[in-house]
C-alpha cells in the first residue's frame, strides 16, 4: 500500500499560552506509528493561500481503537499558523506524514539531558514520553532544561514534570524559574554531566543550538532537531538545505525533511 495524504479531523484546538495553541486531531489508523522527532506537513484542503504546507513536529501521539490521535503544539508566527489557530472543532486538515528521522535512542548513558528553547519543547516532550513508556529505566535519568521568553511562553511543563527526574526552567525576563537563557544554565551545569555518560537532545532557535555547539565543544553525543523552510517535506525539492560535514571531511547540503530533522549536533556546519 502507498502512503497518502491523510485527512485529520480536529477535535480540540486551544490557546494554551498567549499565541501558543495545542491542536488535537483524529487520523486514520493507517497513519501508522510515530518516532519522536518526526513531523507532519499540514494544510487546509483547497486553499491556495497560504500556498505551501506547514511543517509541525508531533507533540504527542496515541492509538485509539479506530484512530490515531495526534497532538501538535504550535506558535502563531505568521499567516499559516494564524489560520490554523482559527480552526474549530470538526474542521479538517490534510496531513502528510509521519515524516523525517527520529532521535537516536540512548545507549547506556546515565544522564539524559533535554534542552528546549520555546516551541522546541514539542518534539522533545514526545521523546521524553516515549522513553518513559518504552524504557522505564530512563525516567530517573532524565533532566529537562526548558527555556522561554517569559512565564507566558512556558509550554507543557506539567507533563514534563511528571516524566522527568528534574525540570529546570528559565526565562529571558526572569518571570518564571531562573533568569537567563537556557544556554546560560547549561553552561553552568554541563560539568555535572560527563561526556561519556551523557546523551543530550536539543531543539530550539538556531542561535540557541549554535551556542550549545560551542558549549559542548564536540565532546558530547547530542541530537538536535532543525527547522528550515520546506516545500515538499519528502526530500524531492531540495528546498530545506542545511550544511553538514561529509564523511570525507568536506561539506554538503543535507535535507532537513528526510535526512533530518534530527541531526547529530557535531554533523552540522554553523556559518
Amino acid at each position, binding site marked *: 500500500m*502507498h*502512503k*497518502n*495524504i491523510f485527512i485529520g479531523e480536529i477535535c480540540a484546538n486551544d490557546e494554551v499560552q498567549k499565541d501558543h495553541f495545542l491542536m488535537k486531531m483524529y487520523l486514520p489508523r493507517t497513519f501508522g506509528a510515530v518516532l519522536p522527532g518526526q513531523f507532519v506537513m499540514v*494544510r487546509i484542503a483547497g486553499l*491556495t*493561500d*497560504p*500556498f*505551501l*504546507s506547514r511543517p509541525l513536529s508531533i507533540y504527542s501521539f496515541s492509538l485509539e481503537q479506530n484512530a490515531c490521535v495526534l497532538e501538535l503544539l504550535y506558535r502563531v508566527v505568521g499567516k499559516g499558523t494564524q489560520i490554523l489557530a482559527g480552526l474549530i472543532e470538526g474542521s479538517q486538515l*490534510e496531513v*502528510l506524514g509521519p515524516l523525517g528521522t527520529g532521535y537516536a535512542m540512548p545507549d547506556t548513558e546515565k544522564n539524559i539531558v533535554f534542552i528546549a528553547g520555546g516551541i522546541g519543547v514539542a518534539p522533545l516532550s514526545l521523546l521524553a514520553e516515549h522513553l518513559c513508556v518504552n524504557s522505564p529505566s530512563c525516567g530517573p535519568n532524565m533532566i529537562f532544561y526548558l527555556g522561554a521568553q517569559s512565564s507566558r511562553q512556558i509550554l507543557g511543563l506539567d507533563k514534563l514534570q511528571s516524566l522527568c527526574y528534574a525540570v529546570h526552567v528559565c526565562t529571558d525576563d526572569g518571570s518564571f524559574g531562573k533568569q537567563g537563557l537556557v544556554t546560560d544554565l547549561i553552561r553552568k551545569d554541563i560539568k555535572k554531566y560527563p561526556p561519556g555518560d551523557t546523551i543530550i537532545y536539543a531543539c530550539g532557535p538556531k542561535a540557541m543550538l549554535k551556542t550549545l555547539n560551542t558549549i559542548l565543544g564536540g565532546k558530547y553525543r547530542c541530537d538536535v532537531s532543525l527547522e*528550515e*523552510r*520546506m*516545500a*515538499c*517535506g*519528502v*526530500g*524531492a*525539492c*531540495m*528546498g*530545506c*538545505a*542545511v*550544511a553538514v560535514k561529509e564523511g570525507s571531511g568536506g*561539506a*554538503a*547540503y543535507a535535507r532537513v525533511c*528526510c535526512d533530518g530533522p534530527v541531526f547529530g549536533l557535531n554533523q552540522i556546519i554553523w*556559518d
Partner: protein
Amino acid sequence: MEKRKIKSVNPLRVGLAGLRLKNPVIAASGTFGYGQEYAQYMDLNRLGGIAVKGLSLKPRSGNPPPRIMETTGGMLNAVGLQNIGVEAFINEKLPFLRQYDVAVIANIYGESVGEYSKVAAKLSAASGVHALEVNVSCPNVRKGGLSFGADPKAAAEVTRRVKGETDLPVIVKLTPNVTDIVQIAQAVEKAGADAVSLINTLTGLAVDIKTRTPRLKNITGGLSGPAIKPVALRMVWQVAKSVGIPVIGMGGILTVEDALEFLIVGACAVQIGTANFINPHAMIDIIDGLEAYLEDNKLKHIDDLVGTFKT
C-alpha cells in the same frame, strides 16, 4: 474484431518525438527528486513520465539556504541545481527507476556547451533513459550573464551539440524570461530539437522588510506554481502554433482543469511541478481526471483534444 481493437487502445497513450508515454502526465524536473522520494506515495507505474532533477557532469552542492520562499499562489526557489552528478545518477538512481514501466526523462544542465554534450553522451550510453530534457533556462545559476535559453543562437548551439551526442529524443526546455519565446523555440527546432518543453520558472525576488535582506540567500529565485499559469499558458499556445515539433506544457498546473487548458492550446503532454509539493497525489488525480474528461466529452483519444483551441 476491428471494433475490439479500437476499444483496447489506451485513450491517454501519447507518442511524442519518439517517446512513448502511457499518458501525457509527466513529473517536472526538480520537483520529483529522482522518483524514489515519491515512490511510497504512489505507484510510479501510473505516471506517463518522470523528468528527474537536473543533472550536471559533476555533483553540485547547490545554493546556501534559505532556498525557498512562499509567495501568493506560488513559490520562489533557488536550489541552485543541487544534484548528485550524472555518474551517481546512472549508478545509484537509474537501477531503481528501471524497475518501473515509466518514461525516464533525464533533465540535463551544463555550464558550457561542452558540459552539456558530455552529460548527454554519458546518459545515452546508460540503459533506462528514454529522453533527454535540456534545461537551457535555469535562472538560478548564471555564468556571467543571461542563460543559454535567452539567446536563440546559444540555445540552438546547445541543441545541436546535444543532438550530436545522442540517439535519444531531445526535448529542449525553454525559459519564459524572454521577449519572444517563439523565436527561441523556432531556433532550437531548426537545430534539431525533437520537442520543446515550457515553461521553466520566472525570475523573481522577495525581501524581508525587517532585515532588508533578500528572503533567498541567492537573492533571486525562480517563481513557480499557479501564480504563473496564465503566462505559461500564453507561451505554450504561442509556441504550439509556431513550431512543427511537439510541445510539452507546464507552469502552475494543480488540477485536471489546468492540465486540460494546456492540452487544448496545443501541448501534447504536460508536466506537473510545484503541485507535487502540496499534493503528492496531484498527478494521479490528473490522470484519472483526463480519462473522465475524455469519456464525458465522448472523445476517443487525447489526441482529439490537443490543439482544439478555438480563437
